[in-house]
């Protein structure tokens, strides 16, 4: 994966003489004090991040954390006070007027919280706006706009005006308008915050769908942790204009960089974020088919367990054998293959914990995590699932994983 967009030490300070305030911010003077003393507002301070091609990158923070200011720096609606922004290796902060126009027309498009639609234009005229100002012919831009209208499921609404549509539909127009420009980078500034919860969920899924098809680089802003973790490949958490932590949702859940972030993610439903591979432990107490019953009993005794998983040479799961089965088998002079039970519950590494819970409750034995060819990746005990749901127990859990 290549770096599509690199933000390097970007600061944005609002006020008449922003550069003068930078030394104060460097000294760590709090925002409120700077505002009281100098009348300058610190929007973003020293933000750095790298965003990969095709990635969905979420910037999360409460209102006033500077996330909207930062995203507006990326297409230079806000010109950074200091720092650099590289897109495909070029520093866009240094662009002149024409370069900037070209950059905005071809490479980057934006979706707004309150849609930012042109109320004097019909839906179709809204979508074709970006193409129109590039000077594309009417027939051509109509065709492209129509195609994107269909992508967002608004066929038949071409000639309506934005205020005749519901909120969800208006934001679809906003998305179609941004996509019509065929940008490499899509900026989304709290696009679903103004929508009611049902519509929001629907739009989130649709965005994931569209992203699967188009593979754009998406930078998505939200104040909603659940939304951030659902949509983001990686998430940056901002507070008071500073980037507190950048990482995958799992990394942030497992190792929050500060108390603030721990607080932030406390209410999150962890079972919807964590997947089997995050909570499983290394498989132990495995017996190979060729080993036979004696070895199986030995293994169980050594590990202090009452059942063992049976694999073939390639570590593909074959079945499970309990200690009772093994002892009876020995008495009756049967082979391991004959006494083991082949009914083993397996899950894939990317299954969410919330989907695994029912299996764990039903089964007396551990659950096996396997990949597609049934090779054992790990096992999940009931305790793993419980531990994963409680954030405080993360350290303990990491130790179990190391076994």
């Amino acid at each position, binding site marked *: 994966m290549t770096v599509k967009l690199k933000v390097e030490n970007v600061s944005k300070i609002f006020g008449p003489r922003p550069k003068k305030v930078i030394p104060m911010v460097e000294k760590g003077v709090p925002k409120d004090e700077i505002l009281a003393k100098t009348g300058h507002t610190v929007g973003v301070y020293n933000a750095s991040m790298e965003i990969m091609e095709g990635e969905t990158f979420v910037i999360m923070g409460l209102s006033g954390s500077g996330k909207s200011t930062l995203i507006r720096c990326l297409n230079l609606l806000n010109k950074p006070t200091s720092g650099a922004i590289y897109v495909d290796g070029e520093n866009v902060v240094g662009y002149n007027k024409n370069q900037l126009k070209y950059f*905005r*027309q071809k490479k980057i498009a*934006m979706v707004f919280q309150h*849609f*930012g639609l042109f109320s004097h234009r019909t839906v179709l005229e809204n979508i074709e706006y970006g193409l129109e*100002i590039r000077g594309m012919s009417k027939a051509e831009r109509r065709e492209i706009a129509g195609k994107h209208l269909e992508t967002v499921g608004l066929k038949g609404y071409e000639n309506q005006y*934005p*205020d005749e549509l519901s909120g969800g539909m208006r934001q679809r127009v906003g998305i179609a308008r941004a996509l019509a420009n065929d940008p490499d980078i899509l900026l989304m500034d709290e696009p679903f915050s103004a929508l009611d919860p049902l519509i929001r969920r629907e739009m989130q899924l649709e965005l994931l769908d569209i992203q699967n098809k188009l593979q754009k680089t998406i930078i998505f802003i939200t104040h909603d942790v659940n939304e951030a973790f659902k949509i983001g490949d990686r998430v940056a958490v901002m507070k008071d204009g500073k980037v507190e932590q950048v990482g995958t949702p799992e990394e942030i859940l497992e190792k929050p960089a500060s108390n603030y972030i721990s607080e932030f993610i406390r209410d999150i439903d962890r079972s919807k974020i964590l997947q089997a591979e995050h909570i499983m432990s290394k498989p132990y107490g495995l017996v190979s088919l060729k080993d036979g019953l004696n070895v199986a009993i030995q293994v169980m005794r050594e590990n202090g367990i009452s059942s063992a998983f049976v694999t073939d040479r390639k570590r593909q799961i074959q079945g499970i054998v309990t200690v009772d089965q093994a002892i009876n088998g020995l008495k009756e002079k049967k082979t391991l293959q004959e006494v083991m039970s082949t009914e083993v519950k397996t899950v894939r590494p990317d299954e969410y914990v919330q989907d695994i819970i029912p299996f764990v409750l039903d089964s007396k034995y551990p659950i096996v995590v396997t990949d597609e060819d049934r090779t054992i990746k790990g096992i999940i005990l009931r305790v793993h699932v419980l531990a994963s749901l409680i954030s405080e127990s993360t350290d303990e859990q990491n130790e179990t994983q190391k076994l």
Partner: protein
Amino acid sequence: MTEFPNVRIPIGDVVENFIDFLAMNFDAFFDFIFVISSSMIKGLEAGLLAIPWWIFIIIIFLLGWYFTNLYGGLLFGAFIFLIGTFDLWPETMTTISIVLISVILSLVIGIPLGVGTAFSKTLSTVMRPVLDAMQTMPSFVYLIPVIFFFPLGNVPAVIATIIYALPPVIRLTELGIRNVDKEVVESAQSFGSSTSQMLMKVQLPQALPTIMAGVNQTTMMALSMAVVGSMVGAQGLGERVLYAINRIDISLGFEAGISIVFLAIIIDRITGGIANRLQKHRRDAA
């Protein structure tokens, strides 16, 4: 120490000298303006008078119907018919011409100025006291210098009318453009619009309802200048009112006066209707 000290700062003289200077040195320029505006007024007046009375009434009826409602159209038609019965038809056409030309010239000057003030804080700061002066300075005061530049007649009336009626359209154009939703402007920017594309395709269309409210105000104020304008020789209904005052002719005074009111109502409702129609698709859509 009850009396003000005997100091004199002769601002009035300075202005008078300046007006004299202009009148003497920019003769050709004022002649040019005179010819242009007087021929515009004459042309429009002749055109209006050439329309048969019943066609004119039908046009007003249709405009009223289209921009307000059937009832409005009928009422406006009746108003015009009444004016006809007062035997004030040609005077009414003259007044309409003067008002229309004043309004058109006000818009030609006012909208670009309004756009300018919306974009430049400096211009806006400079313009504000000027606009205040234009609106509050008694109009008779600038009638005096205007007659230095132009012969008595319709043209000085138009100039005085423009001075009086210009501020609302400038102010409301500025307000309209400044009030365009921030996200709408940002979204136009984010697509790489140039300044002129932004203005023509987004800001002006979005500001249009507010600008139309300014046009409506300007028109009403232009009409209210009809009588004052006749003091520098403008013809039309205002001149009839003035004549009635001199003759203490209550009947003529009322008829000419009520005709001006009728025109005001018709113009207000029609321009208001146009503004509403523009507003239709843009309520809270941002």
